[in-house]
């Protein structure tokens, strides 16, 4: 369980009313990672959906940091939605990384229960995809 006030500061949850936010907060855990520890691991299946509440994380592929994640950013959704193992390491790169964690089997029901949350997620994913497309051109 995480404090609903922590979630209320994040854009992903901006459309939820206070009672809904409390219900979502009851579903999520709070996690803390020291610098250089892995949150998700390349090749390992069954991780959760993570939203950064404080600190920074990096997407690390073959030892190289590719993308930096900040408070409000989320990860883990691709593996859950495709059913495939995680494709990159996600590593804590601040002194402490704090995240809200949703168990993987709860992500689909959450998106169905709160379509506005799904829309916010889709918008963020679209921005990421556009950045990747521009970068690869």
């Amino acid at each position, binding site marked *: 369980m995480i404090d609903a006030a922590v979630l209320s500061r994040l854009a992903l949850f901006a459309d939820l009313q206070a009672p809904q936010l409390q219900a979502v907060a*009851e579903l999520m855990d709070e996690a803390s990672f020291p610098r250089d520890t892995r949150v998700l691991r390349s090749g390992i299946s069954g991780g959760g959906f993570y939203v950064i509440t404080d600190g920074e994380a990096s997407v690390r592929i073959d030892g190289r940091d590719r993308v930096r994640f900040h408070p409000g950013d989320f990860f883990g959704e691709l593996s859950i939605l495709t059913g495939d193992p995680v494709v990159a390491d996600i590593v804590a790169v601040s002194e402490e990384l704090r995240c809200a*964690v949703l168990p993987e089997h709860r992500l689909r029901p959450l998106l169905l229960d709160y379509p506005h949350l799904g829309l916010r997620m889709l918008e963020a994913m679209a921005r990421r995809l556009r950045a990747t497309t521009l970068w690869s051109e």
Partner: protein
Amino acid sequence: MTAGVFPPGDYDVVVVGSGPGGLQTSYFLSRLGVRHAVVSADDAPGGMFRKWPIFQRLLSWSKPDAPFARDSREYEWYDHNSLLADEPELRALVPGFMDRSWAVPSRPEMEQGLTAFAERAGVAVRYGCRWESTRREEDGRLVLATSDGEYRCRAAVFALGVTEPWKSPIPGIEDVPHYAETGDPASYRGKRVLVIGKRNSGFEIADGLLPWAQRVTLVSPRPADTSVIALASVRVRYLQPLEDRALGGGTYVLDAAIERIERTATCFRVVAQGTTRAGEYELEYDAALAATGFRTPLGDLEQLGVRTVAQGRIPALTPLFEAAGAPGVFFAGNATQGAAGLRKRGVGSSSPAVQGFRYNARVLAEHLAEQLGVRPRPRRRLAADEVVPFLASELASAPELWAQKGYLCSVVGLDGPFDDGIQPLERFVDAGGADAVAVTVELDAAGEIFPGVYVRRDGRIREAELDPHPLSAFDGDPYRRELASLVGLP
């Protein structure tokens, strides 16, 4: 054992607490030859089981008869409440006190089992000695100030349980008594009772008050997940209030976020907003109880750098139960849930219960013995043709793997080969090192149980999930063939 035992002074390790976590840790430290002291503010062993659960019945099973002999390692899976011991005569003590009216022990039966363990295993404790504050000296050593004097140590193990009443931040909740302050059931006779919270303790109170209260209403934002409850040990407490609700017997289970609570001269007035069904509730109750959980009594440890999760209730721990941010500060018992593991498939550890944390205590004691240079972790040599049968047998019946699904693993070093013991899976996956294989018993959200295999070669981990089996016969030929192919041994 009290006065004269473990006087203040220098020790390699100091353990704080005499509940199951403290007793189990001290037992293994002693067997490994680690010089340590155990201090406790209580005056007898048992920790929280000396007073809770309020309605005197545990949730976790101990089956007096099972497919394995009571003094065997395999029997541990059928007895979730006894502490572990190397000596057969010290094993499985709790079932010996049970009257078999239930498959789960009563609180006094559990307390008797823990007391018997402390006595028969000779676990000494300095009782009546309260830990008061903590500081770190320049040489890195920790100093624990207690009511009896100061203890200096290289590592401190806090086995304090998750026992300090905690209330969620709701305006007005300060006027609501906590679960820990629940009165005599008779004092709720004929009353309308509000229970805030739908977790174990909320349903325990609802069930316990059914014979007394006029009406019980449970309130929290999320619905009680009946599909999960049916598979969890909490079913013992959950089902009767839910049946009562379903049949309209006067119990209500509301999904609502409480906005505020007002205590008037005669009642508690509650304003809440529906979550799964929109709408405002204005309700009045004669009595209210906050079944909102507990926190680890951390004292001043956060000033030493201990970080927390779960709204400040649980210390954030490394896979070997050390506080992130406070080297040398370790936790045992229920608080080891702060080492969350890989959270695969959304399944958490069993560390909040004796059945899970008793194994964490052995992992911690072996780690401390190795770290302090007292004794390296035991590594038993295996012949090459023993590896696959050993791993298959571990998958089928190792109690550590069954109690801590997807959390603890059984490891074989392939450069030997040798049995490398029970380790946290997260540590195996992240630590790197020589070629090795780890097996786990895993569980998914639908309740399917299946073996997990993690092969480390040249520093890279390859994960394989094997199929479930209707009888969980993971030591059968198909599993042995698959294991042989994965590890490249006969």
